[in-house]
């Protein structure tokens, strides 16, 4: 829209209302985070004396180091959230990588190398997107038992990969159907085979959808609690389970500042991923919707 030189009052008021609403909504979402951050910097003495919601009178990072490496969680020898955090990282990286690669390959095949029944295959795969987590708990634990992977990190990774492939395939397939098919035809005539076309032509064009998929999978898997609590044993529990155990410990005093710091630590990686790659996320989601 072209800017008019003399905006009418109606326009200005409209803008004011719009921004007003946006600020209120943003504040509504940001306030809990701000409260968490403030509380995590206060000391327990201060919290005990005053209100939970109050400006910090002193600044200390004690609660953060407590949550990270000192607080006793359950009956473990290692203290703090650190071992859980490391478990989460060990789980999330292979899970995201494998499910993304499989999704890209599936999408590539379903878009450019259609076979008899490939549409049916895709439809069947999509059902996986609608399966609730709870529905696969029992059969999956049975399967992991048979495979001898119960309670192991590998079992957890396998679960996340299998569950995630439906989504990643959907993402890549829907992105690839908008790529011109003549590219693949041209490459075939140039003598390229299945893998060469994938790695030299298709994958270099997949950056936007790769970012979307990686962010999506990372957030899903990092934030997952249910699979984490069901398919792990104490040595392989991810950070979401660790945080839950920490906050729900019923012995002693409730350490609000440590709980808050722990919650932020557990959420930090997803926040970082969004801040770093967020604009590609939006761009990738809308890619292909506008031609040109």
């Amino acid at each position: 829209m072209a800017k008019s030189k003399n905006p009418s009052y109606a326009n200005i008021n409209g803008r004011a209302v719009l921004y007003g609403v946006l600020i209120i909504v943003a504040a509504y979402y940001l306030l809990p985070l701000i409260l968490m951050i403030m509380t995590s910097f206060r000391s327990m003495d201060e919290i005990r004396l005053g209100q939970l919601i109050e400006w910090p009178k002193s600044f200390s990072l004690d609660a953060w180091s407590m949550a990270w490496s000192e607080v006793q969680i359950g009956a473990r020898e290692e203290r703090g959230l650190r071992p859980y955090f490391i478990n989460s990282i060990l789980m999330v990286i292979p899970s995201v990588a494998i499910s993304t690669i499989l999704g890209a390959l599936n999408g590539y095949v379903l878009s450019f190398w259609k076979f008899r029944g490939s549409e049916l295959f895709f439809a069947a795969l999509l059902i996986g997107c609608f399966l609730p987590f709870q529905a696969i708990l029992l059969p999956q634990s049975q399967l992991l038992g048979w495979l001898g992977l119960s309670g192991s990190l590998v079992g957890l990774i396998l679960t996340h990969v299998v569950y995630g492939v439906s989504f990643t395939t959907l993402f890549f397939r829907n992105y690839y159907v908008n790529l011109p098919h003549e590219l693949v035809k041209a490459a075939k005539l140039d003598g390229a085979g299945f893998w060469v076309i994938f790695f030299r032509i298709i994958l270099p064009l997949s950056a936007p959808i790769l970012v979307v998929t990686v962010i999506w999978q990372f957030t899903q898997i990092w934030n997952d609690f249910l699979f984490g609590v069901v398919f792990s044993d104490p040595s392989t529990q991810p950070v979401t389970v660790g945080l839950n155990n920490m906050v729900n410990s019923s012995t002693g005093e409730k350490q609000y500042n440590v709980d808050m710091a722990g919650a932020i630590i557990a959420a930090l990686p997803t926040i970082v991923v969004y801040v770093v790659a967020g604009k590609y996320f939006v761009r990738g989601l809308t890619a292909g919707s506008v031609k040109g």
Partner: protein
Amino acid sequence: MAELKIDNVYKSFGEEHILKGISLDVTDGEFIILVGPSGCGKSTLLNCIAGLEDVTTGDILLGDTNVTYEAPKDRDIAMVFQSYALYPNMNVRKNIAFGLEIRKMPKAEIAEEVARVAKLLQIEPLLDRKPSQLSGGQRQRVAMGRALARRPKIYLFDEPLSNLDAKLRVEMRTEMKKLHQRLGTTIVYVTHDQIEAMTLADRIAVMKGGIVQQFGTPQEVYDDPANMFVAGFMGSPSMNFLRCEVTKQEKDYAVQIESQGTIFQLPVDPKQADLSSYVGKTVVLGIRPEQITHVMPHLVAEQYITQVPVKIEVTEPTGADTLILARINDQECECRVHPQEAGKVGESMDLLFNMSKAVFFDEQTEARL
């Protein structure tokens, strides 16, 4: 370079039959154009030649080898696509080199080949650009460069000029013809533009409904069409089709036309058709607009020329000629006259009907008589 032989090729998608028995023999170095309306199967045929589609039955031979069941990469064929299909992630140099790299050509030879092609197509300054930084005409050149680099046995072009604007299209058409004359390669070229077909081809295959209607030189197809479809499709403005009755004259035959209430007998050249079995019946007279002209005194006395006054319904000046829409036998008839001779709308004007190149078709079967 090689000969291409397409032998009785059928292609069906389920119950939908796209190609119904195509046979074409293309000799080495020939420029063949497949032309026809959309959906006639010309692009499918091209994809079958390339190996991008499997044929249902029939054989495709390249030189002495039967390539019907070979993968595209083993056929040694290069193709230029309508959308150019340049790899967006590679610059022009890489685009041209890609096929050579895949075929494991040594680096030095690749560089040499890219340089040769770039020089040939005058795209040297563009070599380091990405396809998105090129204009339509430049992309077209690069797409051709990619095809030329491999020196394949034959080249396939799938409507390569249809995405260019009108002026550029005419320029590229000339360039393509020059290129073919220089390289002498076998080319199969698909277009729906009959002017492109006429100007470029050594031979044209006119297709409709999955069947080759006629396969011949441009002049054959133009002057001697196999049926009404070919006659109407080739040439712009297209051939006039007038339904008229055949009459017997002293020794020859004639077709009878009516203009402004007067009956005229147009003599039929026996070289063009034998209408003896059609006396008293209706045939379709096919006569091109340039065979109906203004009165030129030196032609008036010729045997197969008849002077007919017509009423002008519409005039369309094209600059070089003026097209006149007249009414003959209560059917529209387009005529091509010199701009200075053209009358005004509503006026009557004398025109010369030259029957020496007229063709005749059966009213029902639309086949040539």
